[in-house]
């Protein structure tokens, strides 16, 4: 079966050696930001440039015990596979966020609803040049 070119659901989600299951949401961000410059009599920016990027990720899971067991400040590689919508061979995308530092983990649950926890991660670049966010076909 050919890849559907559609992604749906996540698998293989982990932070270092900690496998994260019951995943309902994963976000990866390139973390781009823009700096603008204006001077003298300028009313509008005359330069808009991307000077810095800070890739981030978040993961939400119903396995609250696993996520809440991860301490803020923990550093490891965070990876997740975005599955092909029909599980076609060659259609999965693997994201890897190197040097992913846990910023926070929080949990919530409403009456009559499944509980969930969300972990947010910031990453750093070991050399200041190479993006810690990479991707490939799984």
């Amino acid at each position, binding site marked *: 079966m050919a*890849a559907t070119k559609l992604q749906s659901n996540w698998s293989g989600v982990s932070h270092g050696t900690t496998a994260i299951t019951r995943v309902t949401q994963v976000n990866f961000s390139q973390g781009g930001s823009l700096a603008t410059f204006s001077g003298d009599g300028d009313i509008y920016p005359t330069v808009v440039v991307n000077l810095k990027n800070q890739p981030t990720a978040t993961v939400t899971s119903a396995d609250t015990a696993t996520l809440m067991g991860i301490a803020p400040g923990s550093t490891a590689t965070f*990876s997740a596979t975005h599955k092909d919508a029909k599980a076609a061979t060659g259609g999965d995308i693997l994201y890897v966020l*190197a040097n992913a530092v846990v910023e926070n983990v929080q949990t919530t649950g409403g009456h009559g609803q499944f509980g969930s926890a969300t972990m947010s991660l910031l990453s750093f*670049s*070991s*050399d200041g*040049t*190479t993006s810690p966010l990479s991707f*490939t*076909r799984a």
Partner: protein
Amino acid sequence: MDRRPPDALLLPEAWKRGETQIERIDSILAIAEPLLQVDRSKGQRAYIRRREGGWLFVTADPLDTENYPCWHSKAEQPRYRWVLAGDSSKHGFLVEEPNHA
């Protein structure tokens, strides 16, 4: 003349082809994985990272970095010797054994 395969690649981002993300990834992997001699049957992959200036930095290890890490005695120096490949891409050869960042 380097006879061994490169350890890293810098490919123009303009080489991406396709309309979907998986198509674009595949178009780069189709070039990069044979050059890096990635063997998918052994679980190996080529990992793509965006780089400023319209380049893609591709290696077989997602923890590879272009330069030595900032805490290394060779900080800010390149870990690779870059060779122009003649097709607008660059092939990188580790100047010494990798020291994972």
